[in-house]
């Protein structure tokens, strides 16, 4: 008997395949000396942005709520990951394990942040939710900008201003207010990024094809109908939101541990929008689309640097954002582009016959 393969799981396997293939090819290219140093330095952040895009797609594409504070969760993950990596320095000498532990703590911080915002706020919908997530992102940025964190033999010290921040002589200051985290040991590696993407795919794809995932998508498509058949709105919304935030936290930890210093203003509103552009361009709800869009759009500007396009990059993103929305949502344009697509398909079929 022929075994039936679920369309969803087939799609999922293709995604894993793409990631593994990309990893193998890039590794081979690095081995062959075909990747320049500047491009190599982009690999880890590109992995982080892929994870960010896939996780934001869970909120925007699959849950159908706009989050404008995704960078806030990334920031939480980055700074808690950095603090964890320094505190675990002696407890876990093995670097990959310490990186994994730091990322786990980053994910935990992200999830915690997601729950704190999510529990009260997910009762709101649409524009209100968007503006509150935006506000939350700003609050996180503001708080980390005034935060001082350090460790010495007596334990961890946290203060809200530099004059109250006192450490023992052998203490290490980790986060220094507006200067951000400095003196971070770079632990991140491309392989870690690759594994993080696989884990993200595993989590998100299994969630989407599970009972919970179907409930979440039902909420997106018609909240009232879903509620009336007994789907617990808050529970499933919160589930999607917290998982999304946790993945962003893990990506943030990897991102933070890729640089020797990180400032909170790196994770501002612009970063949230950048990730949103990846998601929208890749296609709302399409995990593969998010992955490809994030990887390409993150690396492309670097490749095009010689063309002096950097100045126009954000302008082009803005235009893309508007155009994609108009083309996919305006009835007239939709039928127009739809008929174009049909024509080209017919041509292809005609050529094949």
């Amino acid at each position: 008997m022929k075994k039936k393969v679920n369309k969803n799981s087939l799609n999922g396997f293709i995604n894993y395949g793409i990631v593994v293939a990309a990893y193998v090819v890039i590794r081979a290219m690095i081995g062959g000396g075909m990747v320049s140093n500047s491009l190599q330095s982009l690999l880890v952040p590109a992995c982080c942005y892929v994870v960010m895009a896939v996780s934001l797609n869970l909120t925007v594409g699959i849950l159908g709520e706009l989050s404008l504070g995704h960078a806030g969760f990334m920031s939480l993950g980055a700074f808690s990951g950095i603090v964890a990596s320094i505190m675990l320095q002696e407890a876990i000498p093995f670097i990959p394990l310490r990186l994994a532990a730091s990322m786990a703590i980053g994910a935990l911080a992200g999830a915690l942040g997601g729950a704190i915002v999510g529990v009260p706020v997910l009762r709101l919908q649409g524009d209100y939710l968007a503006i509150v997530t935006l506000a939350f992102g700003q609050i996180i940025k503001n708080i980390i900008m005034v935060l001082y964190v350090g460790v010495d033999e007596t334990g961890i010290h946290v203060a809200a201003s530099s004059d109250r921040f006192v450490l023992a002589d052998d203490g290490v200051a980790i986060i220094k207010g507006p200067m951000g985290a400095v003196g971070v040991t770079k632990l991140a590696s491309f392989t870690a990024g690759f594994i993080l993407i696989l884990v993200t795919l595993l989590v998100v794809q299994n969630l989407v094809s599970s009972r919970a995932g179907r409930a979440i998508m039902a909420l997106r498509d018609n909240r009232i109908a879903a509620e009336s058949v007994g789907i617990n709105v808050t529970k499933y919304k919160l589930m999607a939101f917290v998982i999304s935030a946790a993945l962003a936290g893990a990506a943030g930890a990897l991102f933070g541990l890729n640089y020797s210093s990180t400032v909170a203003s790196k994770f501002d509103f612009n970063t949230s929008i950048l990730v949103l552009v990846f998601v929208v361009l890749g296609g709302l709800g399409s995990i593969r689309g998010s992955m490809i869009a994030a990887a390409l759009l993150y690396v492309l500007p670097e490749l095009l640097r010689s063309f002096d396009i950097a100045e126009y990059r954000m302008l082009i993103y803005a235009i893309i954002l508007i155009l994609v929305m108009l083309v996919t949502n305006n009835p007239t344009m939709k039928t127009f582009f739809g008929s174009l697509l049909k024509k080209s398909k017919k041509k292809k079929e005609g050529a094949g016959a």
Partner: protein
Amino acid sequence: MSFLNNVITGISLGSIYAIIALGYTMVYGIAKMLNFAHGDVIMVGAYMAFFAMGRFELPAIAGVLLAVVVCTALGIVIERLAYKPLRQAPSLAVLITAIGVSYFLQNGAQILWGAATKTFTPIVNGTLVLVPEQLSISYVAILSVVCCIVVMIGLTLFTTRTKMGKTMRACSEDKAAAQLMGINVDATISMTFAIGSALAAIAGVLMCSAYPVLSPTTGSMPGIRAFTAAVFGGIGSIPGALLGGILLGIIETFGKAYISTDLSDAVVFAVLIIVLLVKPAGLMGKYVPEKV
């Protein structure tokens, strides 16, 4: 005395927020959308006044007029090109488009006028000293409050007394019914955007006179704060925008004075979150139950 000074600063800042919040509240009331680009229209208005007064050395009133005209046109163009095609689309699509427009304006301004901050020349100078060395009010602050009151009275009269104002209210209540009564809904929405953008221009000039730095991102944070004010007062309500704006201005000033300058944004947004949780319809908004 520093308490009184803070109250005065708060009220004048709040008046500016109130004028911006009106733009949000009117557009939200009619088009049911959050016009994310509203804050960036403020920035464009301020730049217009800056160039008119600084480069072409026109009098202040001409600068303000130019800003109002350009912003009104800009508001109508944005509505026609970006929002009108999406009238039937889900709100997520409209919101993402609005963010796109906001980004477009910011980055367009950066390319056209440069990223460097410019120093804005205030349209009025000097301060009124009430108690020497202790209590004083700058003329800009007085002008802001006066503008805010004039705009509020004008808008209230406009929406209640004139035919156009009545069509606006009809559209915000029920678009389909309004259309059946022969109201041109598209024209009414365009007009709302025009009025909102004109107010944004005035607010931009006032804001840059009070805090004279100008850069392509000048408008975005005040825009978001003013939206907070609109939500605080109850979105869709004109007196609510006034109340919300002034309260938010006072909260922000006091937060800066007594808590921490660095945390003023955090304080403002914490207020937003608390208001939405406790009273989602805002202080003066109507609670509209969802009909199935």
